[in-house]
């Protein structure tokens, strides 16, 4: 990842690319206008001491001075040039990027929840439909259509290096799209204020080759593996009746969908919407004290005993 994972002055996909020149153009116009005005102002004010360095306002005589209306006319005329260019370019760029592609290579349903992202991959064959969370895999080189749903309050879907923001609003479905040119991990972030943990509502877009994508997809469709050791079996039981109130682990009794799907939890790089790097250690930390790590999160502390914790961990690390 680059130095600024959310910076958008370097783009990595078609949609972001086609906006970037316009961004640079307006930024240059903006900078140029500031410099010109600053220079004019500086010179104008610096002329003051030539009045004899008067400190007393009233000692400088009042004069009508020249009319000066030319300043306004000329200024307006010059300003019109970049403004018109920007106007036309804006319309052109808007036409180029706003509409979702008519033949997307992939269509996703993303639902934004306080404070995590639910991602659904639909398929004509229901058994190939699955859900995951906080990590979106896409094939490179094809446009991906994202249907955005608001799960509770308004959030906004944003992957700076691939595409600008589109809000996820309850009661309506907004469309966004993106296309990655290069394989890589691109950070995304909720960008509409949505409560306590708006700050920690990130996600990642993993762009990979068609082949990698296909094998990832095939793996995701699979149900969770069965427990092997007794600890894992105890862990699974616990997960089913403690965590299954909210979470789903496909292939087990844990079937609720009000929280991230855990079926292939360990295949994801981060935990809790980008809050932690995912590894067995941080997993334990999270389950022990989600409220400490992400204050206000919708996942309550579970108050598991040390034994239970290690069983749950043993089971969860199996979910690749």
């Amino acid at each position: 990842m680059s130095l600024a994972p959310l910076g958008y002055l370097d783009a990595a996909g078609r949609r972001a690319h086609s906006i970037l020149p316009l961004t640079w153009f307006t930024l240059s116009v903006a900078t140029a206008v500031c410099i010109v005005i600053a220079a004019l102002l500086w010179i104008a004010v610096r002329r003051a001491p030539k009045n004899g360095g008067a400190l007393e306002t009233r000692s400088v005589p009042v004069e009508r001075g020249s009319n000066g209306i030319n300043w306004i006319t000329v200024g307006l005329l010059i300003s019109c040039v970049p403004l018109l260019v920007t106007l036309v370019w804006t319309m052109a760029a808007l036409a180029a990027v706003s509409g979702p592609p008519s033949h997307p290579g992939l269509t996703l349903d993303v639902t934004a929840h306080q404070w995590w992202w639910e991602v659904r991959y639909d398929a004509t064959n229901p058994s190939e439909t699955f859900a995951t969370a906080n990590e979106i895999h896409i094939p490179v080189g094809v446009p991906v259509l994202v249907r955005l749903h608001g799960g509770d309050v308004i959030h906004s879907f944003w992957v700076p290096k691939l595409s600008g923001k589109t809000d996820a609003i309850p009661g309506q479905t907004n469309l966004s799209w993106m296309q990655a040119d290069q394989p890589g991990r691109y950070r995304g972030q909720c960008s509409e204020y949505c409560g306590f943990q708006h700050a920690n509502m990130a996600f990642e877009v993993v762009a990979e080759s068609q082949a990698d994508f296909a094998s990832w997809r095939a793996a995701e469709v699979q149900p969770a593996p069965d427990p092997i050791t007794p600890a894992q079996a105890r862990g699974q039981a616990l997960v089913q009746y403690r965590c299954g109130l909210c979470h789903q682990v496909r292939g087990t009794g844990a079937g609720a969908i009000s929280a991230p799907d855990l079926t292939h939890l360990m295949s994801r790089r981060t935990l809790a919407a980008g809050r932690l790097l995912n590894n067995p250690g941080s997993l334990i930390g999270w389950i022990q004290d989600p409220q400490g790590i992400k204050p206000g999160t919708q996942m309550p502390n579970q108050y598991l005993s040390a034994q239970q914790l290690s069983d749950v961990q043993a089971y969860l690390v199996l979910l690749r």
Partner: protein
Amino acid sequence: MRPADYRTPAIGSDSLAHQARLLEVWATAPGLKGFFSSVDHKQIGIRYIVTAFLFLALGGIEALVMRLQLAGPNLSLLTPEQYNQLFSTHGMTMIFLYASPILSGFSNYLWPLLLGSRDMAFPRLNALSYWIYAAAGIFLYAGFLTGNGPNDGWFNYVPYASRDYNPGLNEDFYSLGMVFLGISTTVGAANFIVTALRTRAPGMSINRLPIMVWGTLTASAANLVVVPAVSLAFLLLWMDRQFGTHFFDPGGGGQPLLWQHLFWIFGHPWVYAIVLPAMGMVSDGLPVFCRRPLVGYAAVALSTVATMILGFGVWVHHMFATGLPGLALSFFSAASIAITLPSAVAVFAWLATIWLGRPVITTALLFFASTILLFVIGGVSGFMTASVPVDWQLTDTYFVVAHLHYVLIGINVFPVVGAAYFWIPKMTGRMLDERLGRWNFWTMFVGFNLAFLPMHVTGLLGMPRRVYTYAQGMGWDTLNLITSIGSFVFAVGVLLFFVNVWKSLRSVANAGPNPWDAPTLEWAVSSPPPPYNFAVIPTVVSRHPLWENRLDEEGAVSSIERGMLLDKGKETVGTTALDAVPDMVLEMPEDSFAPVLLALGAAALFVGLLLKAWLVAGGGTGLVALAILIWLWPRRELREREAGS
């Protein structure tokens, strides 16, 4: 004896006996009685200014606490909830309790003086608008201080503000407080409009109005029609929360986006309403220190109005990412790009005024001149967000936070502090210290740019706004530290300003009527002005009554020394809307307790609604009705009823 229905006002010159007569009818009673009943626009104006600066300090301190939390990555000085209430309260305070009231304060104080009148058109309404502002401010802060401050940002999007997601009293305080405050803004706006149109000095035709009057008049006209949008939105929100209505709740067929439309239909015109009067201050103040009239008066006046007219049609630029159809986006994008032009008129007019004048470097000039630069920096970032595709990246990042602070601080705080240096001598008779003024200016200027210029880059590097913390390795650490340091430097600058005012209040009054040799009417009366402002009503024939002898105006000169005496009671003159030809003698109301009573009743009503204490609410309503009845009871002195009866 039956007072005459018609009279030819006597013309005369000022005299001591005349002044004594006027003083008797115009002076406010001393002590608490006068404090609560005064309708003198100067007292009300000063109260407004003091209260608004108090709120600036409060909002500023909130910001400083936020900046401590954001100074580095992963800091935990504040919990998320504390941070959320802080930034929301900061936004609310600055926008609603500082930026607008401070301008109302200056306008209240200055208008009758600028216009050559003895008071505002509706002095009691004026008092009411202050009392309601104060009460609503206390109401809103009562929420914050009890841990129930707003926590959904100043624009308070639903559904997060609805009861399902926000069960506390926070949003009830905010909603009701905003409806309450809206009353103050609305009646204030009505008062400004009628004052500007009907109580100018004879001869001050509409093309001779000071630009500040144009600014506040335009802002008031806008407020009059847009404040109801936000008041309504907040009322509907409160009903959604408390009475199970479904205006914004998609579950019941409501529309979350309806909130955004109602809010921004108000919100965008409003942001101009809180800068146009301040731009007027620059347009009126800057030329004094450039020793020449403003360049392009007519163009600047027209562009003030044009900004507002265009300003009604750009609200959707705050909603570019909400999934609206392309056609709507194009329209609002184009309008937002076009709106830069009227602003450019002011910028070039100011530049030309300095360039073609002979600037005298005073603290006030420094503040006014720096406004130009800060406005341009803030304006061009607005120009960038006006382009839809660009905004899809910029929106909701610190780039927008940078934009809003450049425009708000650049063309509200800076001109206001400049205006304070310019006009406080008029209000108190005491000059501010110029040397401390330089320190004041440079700390504010350097601190401000140090804090907010790097913020553009933070935004371009993708830092979202309204985050209570951020991770390491995002590329934002150093920039945020610089911003935090800059904020504190800026705060020291603001503190220096307060210190300077405080010092000046303890100095001797020696400003004289016209310390700057300025051209407009307020400088023709003593500093501070007497309760009746003008002993005789002046007659005006130019925009610069006090500069006429030097600017060689054609023909006649204004008459300041002689004019209508109007000393048969609390009187001033009413003039026609365009040409300012005298057309009636206005009978002004005496000091009255009705406004403060009404505000108290309204406060009880809102507290009752908040707590669902219907008895309190009912009592409040009763008090309001009573106050209105007292207020409107037709009175003989005001010639509202037939003398015989």
